């Protein structure tokens, strides 16, 4: 691997051949290459005309990248002169004895080298090797920029840090290597980017547990504060913890958003390449990370409320008059021992409790004049009946019955047959038709119902008679109706006999 600049030969040795087919290794090599220009500065400062060895060039360079990154917004970048001016205090601090002109020269030199002004494309190139699909070792070029110049409004030129610089030099180097959470996060990112979503999900869940643990620790501290301010060190420990936690939240929030973007891409790409299972897993991961973000937002709002809570609790606890700490167990020391006592004795205790525990009442003080008025005032009508009900606005529903009551009556009359004289349906229909052209329909309906008479119900209700209809195979000859010419008759029921039978059985 080597970095080619206009100024110096490559300083990084080519990697030894090895099982580096993994794309992760290539990615890390590329990331490593991004740091090379910074190391290169410290190597090449000896070549500058003059004594510049006291300046820590890599430090200035990183600081320059920070300054540019912080000043960037979406439209423009950082102004060149502005960046130089902001770098000067740090450079001056490195070599206070030197003239200001030299400081400025260092600033410009570092900035120019970060832009790599001398090269044709104003960028850097690193060479690294990978194993190709056929197992052959292949060297590749990696072109990158750290600070690029972009046209600003009005023809001016602004500086912007590139994604590489932000990712590696601002983001990746800014890592607490001992942090378990960050390690988990990095692991997660790696797993996701390599498409190993099952592992990634596990890691994401672990990350979430850790997030919950953070919130839990804070909650416990605040809870303890609420109980007793003195139980918690609010002079140093807690403020430190809160500021750390706030930084942590900001950090995690950034990371998790990055991860989220990553997974979403993985999810969308996964759909086409790897099948629905992969997609589902990626979708789950998105949910988990979203949950992490939600938790962090929550944590942050709690953290911001911690200070006011402490002050309020301090006011409440430290400045409140010390209350008589009774420590009385109302149930165990009063109620439970009282219940087995004889009523006469128990009553004395409850009387004492009531007399002191019911609170106070202000007695009414009445003047005679008021009293007379009061007594002569007619009593207000009592409202025990409640509010007056509004008159219901009833809408008469149209009578949409097919048959009128009168028709039903006539049909029942017709069907009120003597028990020993059943009749054919055809005859009944003919008779009904003579009375009313609609009546045969009702009669036929009732007759069909009677074909399966509810005998059991009739018995239970103590009915004396029951209409029945039997089909003896005769065809019905009627202009309006078809089917069997039922025999309709009335059966007499022996309700009393049935009732006595039933009681005997029971």
């Amino acid at each position, binding site marked *: 691997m080597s970095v080619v600049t206009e100024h110096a030969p490559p300083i990084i040795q080519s990697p030894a051949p090895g099982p580096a087919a993994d794309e992760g290794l290539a990615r890390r090599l590329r990331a490593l290459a991004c740091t090379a220009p910074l190391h290169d500065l410290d190597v090449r400062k000896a070549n500058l005309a003059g004594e510049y060895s006291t300046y820590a060039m890599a430090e200035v360079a990183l600081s320059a990248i920070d300054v540019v990154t912080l000043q960037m917004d979406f439209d423009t970048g950082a102004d060149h002169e502005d960046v130089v001016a902001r770098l000067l205090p740090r450079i001056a601090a490195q070599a206070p004895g030197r003239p200001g002109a030299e400081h400025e020269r260092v600033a410009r030199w570092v900035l120019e080298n970060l832009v790599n002004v001398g090269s044709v494309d104003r960028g850097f190139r690193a060479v690294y090797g990978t194993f190709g699909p056929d197992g052959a070792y292949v060297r590749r070029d990696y072109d990158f920029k750290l600070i690029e110049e972009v046209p600003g409004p009005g023809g001016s030129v602004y500086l912007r840090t590139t994604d590489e610089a932000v990712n590696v030099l601002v983001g990746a180097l800014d890592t607490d290597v001992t942090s378990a959470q960050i390690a988990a996060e990095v692991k997660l990112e790696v797993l996701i980017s390599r498409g190993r979503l099952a592992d990634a999900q596990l890691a994401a869940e672990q990350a979430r547990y850790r997030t919950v643990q953070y919130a839990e620790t804070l909650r416990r501290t605040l809870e303890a504060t609420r109980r007793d301010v003195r139980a918690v060190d609010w002079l140093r420990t807690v403020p430190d913890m809160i500021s750390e936690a706030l930084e942590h939240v900001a950090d995690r929030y950034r990371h998790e958003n990055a991860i989220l973007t990553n997974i979403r891409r993985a999810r969308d790409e996964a759909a086409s390449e790897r099948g629905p299972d992969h997609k589902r897993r990626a979708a789950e991961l998105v949910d988990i990370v979203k949950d992490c973000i939600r938790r962090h937002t929550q944590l942050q709002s709690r953290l911001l409320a911690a200070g006011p809570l402490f002050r309020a609790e301090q006011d409440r606890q430290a400045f409140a008059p010390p*209350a008589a*700490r009774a*420590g009385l167990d109302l149930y165990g020391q009063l109620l*439970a021992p009282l219940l087995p006592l004889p009523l006469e004795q128990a009553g004395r205790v*409850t009387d004492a409790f009531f007399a*002191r525990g*019911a609170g*106070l009442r*202000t007695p009414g003080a009445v003047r005679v004049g008021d009293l007379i008025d009061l007594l002569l005032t007619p009593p207000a009508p009592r409202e025990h009946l409640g509010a007056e009900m509004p008159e219901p606005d009833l809408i008469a529903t149209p009578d949409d019955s097919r048959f009128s009551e009168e028709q039903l009556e006539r049909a029942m009359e017709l069907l009120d047959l003597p028990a020993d004289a059943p009749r054919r349906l055809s005859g009944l229909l003919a008779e009904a038709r003579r009375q009313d052209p609609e009546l045969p329909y009702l009669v036929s309906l009732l007759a069909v119902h009677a074909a399966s008479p509810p005998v059991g119900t009739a018995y239970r209700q103590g009915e004396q008679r029951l209409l029945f209809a039997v089909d003896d195979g005769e065809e019905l000859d009627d202009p309006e109706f078809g089917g069997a010419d039922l025999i309709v008759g009335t059966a007499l029921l022996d309700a009393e006999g049935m009732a006595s039978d039933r009681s005997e059985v029971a």
Partner: protein
Amino acid sequence: MSDHRDEAARDDGPAGDAVAGYAAGATTPTEDFGASALSSEGDRAEHTGRAGHTGDAGRTAVTPADTADAARLVSFGLHPKLLPARDAEYAELLRRYRDEPAFARLADAVATGLGLVVLEVSTRAGMALAADEESVFAVRMGDYSRRATADSADRFLHGLAHLAVAAMAFPRPEDLADDGYIGRITVNGVDGFVRQACRRLEERAEEAGENADPVTGAPGLEAAWRVYARRSATGATKDARRLAGSTTGIIGKAVAFLVDSGFLQRTGDDAGGTYRTTPRYQLQVRDMAGSAAMSELLELGVVSVSDGTASLLPPGEGEAEIAGDAALPFHS
């Protein structure tokens, strides 16, 4: 008024100096507690040295206006449902009580003269007052429930209801001691846990194998828990209200009374009515009722030692289930 007045003079410049120099009767555009000398001095003192104290004010003569203010504060305290946060004048008088020892002593004296005990004066509880036994403000059992005067069992049950409400509201000793604790009760929950205690006593009596039935004609000797266990928990009424004589009716009366005393706040209708406690109730139970009942119990020779842990425990296996929304045994 020596050093403090100097401080006022320094801080306020010439105007303050004028006030300090000709203190008596000087009308100054201070806050508005009347134009009395002490008021203006007191307010002046607060402006200048709030963190410091105003012991010198005690040496000034008390004016009728101050007494009126102190009595006004006490009268605010007699409206137990009034919250300082909702009344600017109340809050201002409380602040004055806190900052001016002389005013505080005056207010205390007014309260004592009326037969009241000052439990606490704070922004959370306001001026928390309790009535002396002989005071006109005291509540007598006969006024509370007419039946209770005639029937000793009813009298006991009404008292027990109040005690049980308190026990449910502050189940652990530390809950009673913790100023920030807010207890929650339901009417049915209170009835449930007292019945549970009664049931345990009944089981114990059965285990002992003795005939625990009360002796006829000696109602005063009957065990107290039997009176409660025997009383029906509830009953149907014509107007769908709670049966007054049932245990839930008695407890319902107790909590309604406590709500009027500013001790409970109604929060819902579940389980016969849910309530939460106010700071005043805690003060009243802790500083007044609990100790009074305790000493009465000690006089009867019943000594129970608490190890500080809660003795109100959830029901054991096979007993009624605990309602889910309560921190402690809640039988719905």
